[in-house]
Structures are given as C-alpha cells and as structure tokens.
C-alpha cells in the first residue's frame, strides 16, 4: 500500500525541508487569520496529503491523497473568504485541478486494468502491452502538468497563489508543484520505463515555452504574490527543460547524459522549493505589515524590516540564477545538459536544441530584471504609501521561519555534493547508472558529464567573492574617508515618493518590446483644465496586461461551448420532420464513414461523399431561410 523507495524518500525529504520552516512561519502568521481552527485543520491535512502522495504504493492510495491534496489546498485558498476575488480564484483552481484529476483517473484506469490495488511494477507490465502508449503519455501530461502549472495549464497559478494566505502560498508553490514533478518521475520510470523520442521533445518544448511565458508575465505583474506565482511557472518550465533533456538522451541511448539531466532537474526542484518558499514568506511578511499586495504601495521597507529584506535579497539572487547561489548551480547543470546536445547524431535535433538554450538564457536575463524590480521597488527608495511608512519587522516566529528557510537555501549552495549524492542514488535506483564520481570528483567542483564539458566550483566562487569584497572593504576602511549625509539630487526639487520609479515604469521598456504578447490595456487619464488636457497636475496611468493563453485558450473555449449549446438548444426545438432528416443524415454519415475508414479508402470517394453529406445536411437540416 505504501512504498518507501529512494524516490519516495527523496521527495519526503523535500517536503520536510519545506514544511519545517513553514510551520514556524505559519504559527507566526496565525494572528492574521480569522478562522484559526478551520485554517489549522486544512493546513495539517494538506501537509499529510502531500506526504501521502509521495509514499503511495498503488493507484488507489495515490489518487486518494492526490484528491485530498487538491481539496485541502482549495479550502485553504478559501481561508480569507471576505474577498470576492478569492472565491473566483478558488473556483478556477477547483476546476483546473479536477480537470487534471480526470486525466489521472483515466490513466490509472487504463494502466491498472480497473484493479486500482495493484503495484507500480504490475502496472508496468500492463502498460508495456498497451497499444497506444502515447495516449497514456498525454493523459499523464494533462493530469500532472495542470497541477505543476506548465503552459498552457498554468492559468490558475496567478489567481490561486495570491488568494491563499502566505504560508499556504509558500507550501503550494514550493511543495505542491513539486509533488506533480514527483508524479512525472514516478510514472515515467516506474510505469512507462521506456519512452519515445517525441515525448522528450514535447516536454522540452513545453518547458521552454513555460519558462519564457512565466517570466514575461511575471515582469508585467504588480501584485507581488501573482508575480511570484508567475515565477513558479518559469521555474517549473526550467525543471521540465532538464527533465525533457533527460528523456531525449535516454531515448537516444546516452544514459550518462540522461542521468545528468535528471539530476539537474531534481536539483532545480529542490532549489525552487527553497527559494520560492522563502520569497513567498518574504512577500507574506510585507503583506502582513502593509495589508496590500500592490507593489506600487511599498517602498523603503528595508529600513523597517531588515531581516525580511535580506532573506528576500538572498532568495532573489538565487532565483535569478546568479553565481555562486544554488539556483545558479542547478541552472548551470541544465545548461550543461543542453550543451551536451553536441554529442547527438540526429542533426535536426541538434539544430533545434540551441533554441532551448536561447529560451533558458533569455529567461535568466529577464528573471534578473524582474527581481531587481521586485526587490528595488518593494524594499528600496522611499515609502509609497502610509501603510509602508508604518511597517515594522514581523514577529519572532515568522522571522525564525524565514531564517530557517534561508539556511536551507545556503545549505543547498554549500553542501551541493551531499545533495548531488542523494539525487544520484535516486537516479541510480531508477536507471541503474551512477555518475556521482564523474560529476563531483572532488568536493571543490562540479563537472559536466559531456565531452570537454565545463566545470564550476561553487565554493571557490563563493570564497573568491567573499575574499575580494573583504579586501576592498578593508582598503576602504583603511582610507578612513569622511561621510556626509545629504539628500538625493532631484534637479533642485525635493525628493518625494511620487517621483520615484514605479514597478509599472520599471517594466516599461520590456513591456513595450513584448507588446504583441501582452496586448496591454492602457488607460491614461489627464486632468482637464479649461478644456485643455494637462499632463502634469493630476494624471493617472494604468496598464493591465491581458493574458494571452487565458484569452485564446480558455475564453475562446467558453465561447465555443456557448455556441455549441446554442445549436443544441436549436436542435431540441425542431419539428418532427427535422428529426427524421437528422436520423437520415446520421445514417448516411455512418455508412459513408464505414466505407471510407474501414472498408477501403480513396481520396476520390472521400471528396465525393463529403460533398453529398454537405448537400444533404444543407438541404435537409439547415434548410432555407427561416
């Protein structure tokens, strides 16, 4: 019923690493929550259900805990029910998560032959005999990617994460999305075992698109938690790039490279858990103090909340993949596995993979821009509202939570060899190949596995940076320079909060460059004096980005459903002669399709019969003018 192999224990470890600091933070956050008992029951049930998913040994237990995880997180989103948008976000989340659940259920019904009690090993036998494995693969992708938040099933994240209380956002983004990644590892290795080349390419493309879309929407966001939620999409994309490369290498029979890519994906999974939880905690503390999620209302918080600010800075540097942090190390590994594509013989694949390198590099660059924006606008400068002015540091429990989580981030950076060893033993159990000695020949450096690959040494980078900064600092101190305090130069005017750069303004150039994606809805109101529009007295500028995928995929499918239901409605009100005509047309189409698809196929008859069908439908069903 339960399974404790390497993979399960690894993800159990991930959950515990993420949950322990979160417990402290959550209890510090508790005074902010009105319905405490409600919150606590669902909070603990949520944690237990996530643990249940990763140790589930058969389909029934897996599905039970999966559904419990969805339902408890849905209820947790509804904790602060006063807000109207919360209910909408929760409904959307409920729908999306059950959309995924349906596909998982379908998948399990097929691979277990209806007997949900059998183990993963027995499922593997049934799967290998199943005629259409690609169908199963797409069930898995739809089922798990809608939970993980990969494009195009990512639309619920920017709604659900901001609506949930901050400790829950940290759990959902940090851990729940990783449970879906666990599902990918478990299903791909233990149920499929072998996979086709196209699957890996599909995952790789999905990852590359997710990473770009996530970071681009994050840049245009000014709700701090929605911004972080969009960054989760980006990081899930990066994990999928690693995972996809692993699958591609594995189907091309390059096991060492494949193991390297999978280890990179696992490493990034851990890293994302650490820094994203920390970022959500920081955002939660800021939200706790200022009671607003709008970044334009923050500013200057570093003076009042130094611990929040510096832990947030650490996480920002890490998520921007800047050396020597852990985020950099895992992205470096993913880059190295992409660069390993030079060893592939398939020339078209070889030419295509640089586009992923491009996507990942651009993502990195935009992530830096985005986190400069978040950190700079939130914590630096002057306060932009009275709430920000009166903010002070959060309580001791929340501080402990943030400090513990930053210790997790630092440990992932300092003890990389230990973590790699852990991932390697997991991959070894799944793929029977151990490459730990090749990645880490000594504890100083991390080696790429491909021919003539690169090397990075996190400890030397860190030590180098610290030593150089210290030397510069000592040199500066020894000069004993005089300091003078004066105000910022503002062209002769006084510096004021309103003349600072805003978050919207900061992302302005990038928003303008990617207008085709954002399709922004811009309002620019100017005060009118004596019939003349002025610009300087009281002007209001607001930009709202219209999410492309939501608009094209979701709204249009709603429109399509509406249209279809309209026709169904019209059908239901036909007179009897029309019903007879419908039956006749149905019969005709069944006969024709039998002839075309089963009996014998020829293009000529297909065209002929289609023409006959269209005429018959037009004459009998649609009829003349009404």
């Amino acid at each position: 019923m339960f399974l404790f192999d390497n993979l399960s224990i690894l993800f159990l470890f991930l959950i515990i690493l993420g949950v322990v600091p979160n417990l402290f933070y959550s209890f510090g956050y508790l005074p902010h929550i009105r319905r405490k008992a409600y919150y606590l029951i669902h909070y603990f049930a949520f944690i237990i259900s996530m643990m249940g998913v990763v140790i589930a040994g058969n389909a029934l237990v897996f599905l039970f805990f999966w559904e419990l995880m969805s339902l408890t997180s849905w209820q947790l989103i509804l904790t602060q029910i006063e807000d109207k948008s919360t209910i909408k976000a929760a409904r959307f989340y409920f729908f999306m998560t059950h959309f995924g659940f349906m596909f998982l259920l379908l998948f399990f019904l097929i691979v277990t032959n209806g007997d949900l009690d059998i183990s993963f090993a027995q499922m593997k036998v049934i799967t290998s005999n199943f005629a259409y494995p690609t169908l199963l693969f797409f069930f898995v992708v739809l089922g798990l990617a809608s939970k993980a938040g990969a494009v195009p099933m990512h639309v619920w994240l920017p709604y659900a994460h901001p609506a949930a209380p901050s400790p829950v956002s940290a759990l959902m983004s940090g851990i729940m999305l990783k449970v879906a990644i666990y599902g990918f590892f478990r299903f791909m290795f233990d149920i499929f075992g072998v996979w086709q080349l196209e699957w890996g390419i599909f995952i790789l493309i999905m990852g590359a698109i997710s990473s770009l879309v996530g970071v681009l929407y994050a840049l245009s966001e000014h709700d701090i938690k929605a911004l972080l939620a969009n960054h989760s999409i980006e990081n899930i994309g990066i994990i999928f790039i690693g995972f996809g490369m692993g699958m591609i290498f594995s189907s091309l029979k390059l096991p060492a490279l494949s193991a390297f890519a999978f280890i990179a994906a696992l490493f990034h999974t851990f890293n994302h858990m650490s820094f994203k939880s920390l970022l959500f905690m920081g955002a939660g503390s800021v939200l706790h103090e200022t009671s607003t999620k709008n970044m334009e209302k923050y500013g200057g918080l570093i003076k009042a909340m130094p611990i929040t600010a510096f832990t947030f800075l650490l996480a920002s540097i890490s998520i921007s993949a800047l050396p020597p942090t852990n985020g950099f190390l895992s992205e470096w590994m993913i880059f190295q596995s992409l660069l390993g594509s030079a060893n592939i013989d398939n020339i078209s694949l070889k030419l295509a993979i640089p586009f992923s390198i491009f996507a990942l590099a651009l993502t990195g660059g935009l992530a830096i821009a985005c986190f400069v924006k978040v950190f700079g606008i939130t914590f630096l400068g002057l306060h932009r509202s009275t709430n920000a002015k009166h903010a002070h540091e959060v309580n001791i429990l929340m501080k402990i939570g943030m400090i513990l989580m930053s210790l997790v981030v630092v440990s992932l950076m300092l003890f990389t060899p230990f973590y790699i060893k852990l991932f390697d033993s997991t991959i070894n159990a799944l793929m029977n190949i151990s490459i730990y000695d090749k990645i880490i020949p000594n504890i100083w450096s991390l080696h790429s596995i491909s021919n003539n690959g690169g090397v990075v040494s996190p400890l030397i980078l860190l030590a180098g940076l610290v030593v150089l900064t210290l030397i510069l600092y000592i040199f500066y101190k020894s000069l004993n320079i005089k300091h003078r305090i004066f105000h910022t130069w503002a062209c002769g005017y006084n510096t004021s909060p309103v003349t600072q750069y805003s978050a919207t303004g900061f992302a302005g150039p990038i928003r303008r460059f990617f207008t085709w994606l954002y399709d922004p809805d811009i309002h620019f109101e100017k005060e009118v004096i004596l019939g003349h529009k002025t610009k300087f007295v009281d002007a209001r500028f607001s930009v709202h980005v219209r999410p492309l995928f939501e608009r094209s995929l979701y709204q249009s499918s709603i429109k399509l459903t509406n249209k279809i239901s309209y026709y169904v409605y019209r059908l239901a009100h036909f007179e009897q002669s029309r019903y007879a005509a419908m039956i006749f047309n149905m019969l005709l189409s069944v006969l024709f399709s039998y002839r075309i698809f089963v009996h014998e196929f020829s293009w000529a008859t297909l065209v002929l019969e289609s023409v006959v069908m269209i005429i018959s439908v037009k004459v009998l069903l649609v009829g003349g003018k009404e």
Partner: protein
Amino acid sequence: MILYTTTIILMIVIAPLLPSFMKMVKMTLLYKKPISIFQGYRDFSKLLSKEIIVSKETSSITSMAPFLVLSPLILTLFFLPPIVKGEYFVSFIDAFTITGLISLSTFFLMILGLDSASSFGGLGSSREAFISALAEPAMILTVFSVSLMADNLGVGQASINLNNHFPFEHMASFIFAGISFFILLIAENGRIPVDNPETHLELTMVHEAMILDLSGFYLMLIESASSIKFMIFSSMFASLFMPFGLHLPIILGVLVFILKLFFIALLVALLEVNTAKLRLFKIPNLLGIAIVFAFLSLITFYVLGV
C-alpha cells in the same frame, strides 16, 4: 603562479587606460584638444581623496552594493584565458559562469540605482535591465559556439586550443561569432550606439543614470568596475577571436596582447565617432542581430560537421 598573478595585476592596472584611450582617439578625431591617456588614473586618485556624500533616502544597500559590483568582475579576471605561454590559468570556467558573474555585478548595480529614490536611478536600472536581459542569450550562444569550435567548453582551454590549431574549416561560423561578440562588447559596456558614456542627459543615459547619486570612493569603485568590465570583454575578444601570439616569448606576448586590446579600443572609438546613439527601442534590433549571428554561427558549425 607568479606569472598568473602578475598578468591579473597587469590587467587591473591597464584597465583604466582603455577608456581614456578611446576618449583620446575620439577627441582627436573631433579636432578637440585630446585628454591625456592617464586621465583615468587622475580621476581615480581625485575620487579617492574626496569625501563620500550619502543621500539620506538611501539604505544600507548603498554602502554594500558598490563593493559587490566590483568584486565579481575582479573575480572574472581570474578566469580569463591566459595571455602568455606557460602561464597558469583556470581552464574550466565556461561561458555561463562568466556571464553569471557579470550579471551578478549588473544586478547589484541596478539595485543601487533604485536605492536613492531618485527617478534617474530607476530610469537607468530599468533601461539596463532591458538591455542586459536581451544581451544574455546572445552572449551564451556566442561563447558556446566558439567553445564548440575550439572543442572545449572551458573558455581558457578553448583559447589555447584555438591558438594551437585554428579550425580554418569553420571560418564562417568563427566570423559570425566574432560579429556577435563585438556587438555584445559594445552593448554590455554601454558604448555608442547603445549608451553614451559621456552624456548626462536623461533622454540618453543608462549607466550614468544609475550612479548619479554616488560620490567619492563609491563612485571610484563603480568607475573602476566599468573599466574592468571593458577589460574583460576586450581581453576575451582578444583571446578568443584573435587567436595568435600565445607562443611568443613572454615580454613579446604581453606586448602583443596589449596591442590587441588597444586595437579593439581603437575599433570601438572609431565606431563611436561614426555612429549616432540608437533610440532605446531600436537597441533590441541591434541585439537581435547579435542573437541571429550567434545562431548562424552555431548552425553553420553543426551543418558543416565536426
């Protein structure tokens, strides 16, 4: 090891010469009375003796960030390709790490810009974020392509391999990568046509806007960071795209290397005199060209085969 340390110190010492040299060339070409080539040193010594004026709106970031802007760049100098034969070098550091270290420095510079609550700072950071985000993919793709040609991902080893046997069959992709890298050299260092280092006009400035509120020692740190950044890029260009002179005797080798640096500075100066600054929203076109050339370089390399 002594040689290694000496070359790094040499690079730090001659770094301020290059911007002054470019300015000198430009002024000569514009029929102005040129500044001395040692102007950089004079500026630094002047800034060292001045007091620091800290704005009261700033936080502790202003007193930390200038150090963190400079130190990753100095660290990058340790990982650059060797400039003379027999020198110890760090062979393994790849393009991604070097790009990362440069981005780390840019990250702190951008944060510094937002710290003083001045609209200039935000303006500069916003533009810098825009430009450096688009420059990053081109940088990684270009250096990756060169590393492939040199048969090693480590930048140091790649430069040695290129020196030992230059891959003439991949000349086309080599030149494409060279063009792409030269555009990056201009974009990342804020030279015309991307940014004008001499202007203090809010319409055009990028780098200067971020550091408008710094003075004294802090300003010196940032100024030396920008001259070291130019040093990093020009020395990478010299080692990777002008792969000769490594086998000369030590003194001659260093001389050839310095000549190469000044040649690159001359090229940049000539380009600066002959072009106007681009509008901010035209810069992506330029960087797009760099990205396209980087792709072309990779694709021609793959198609021609190893």
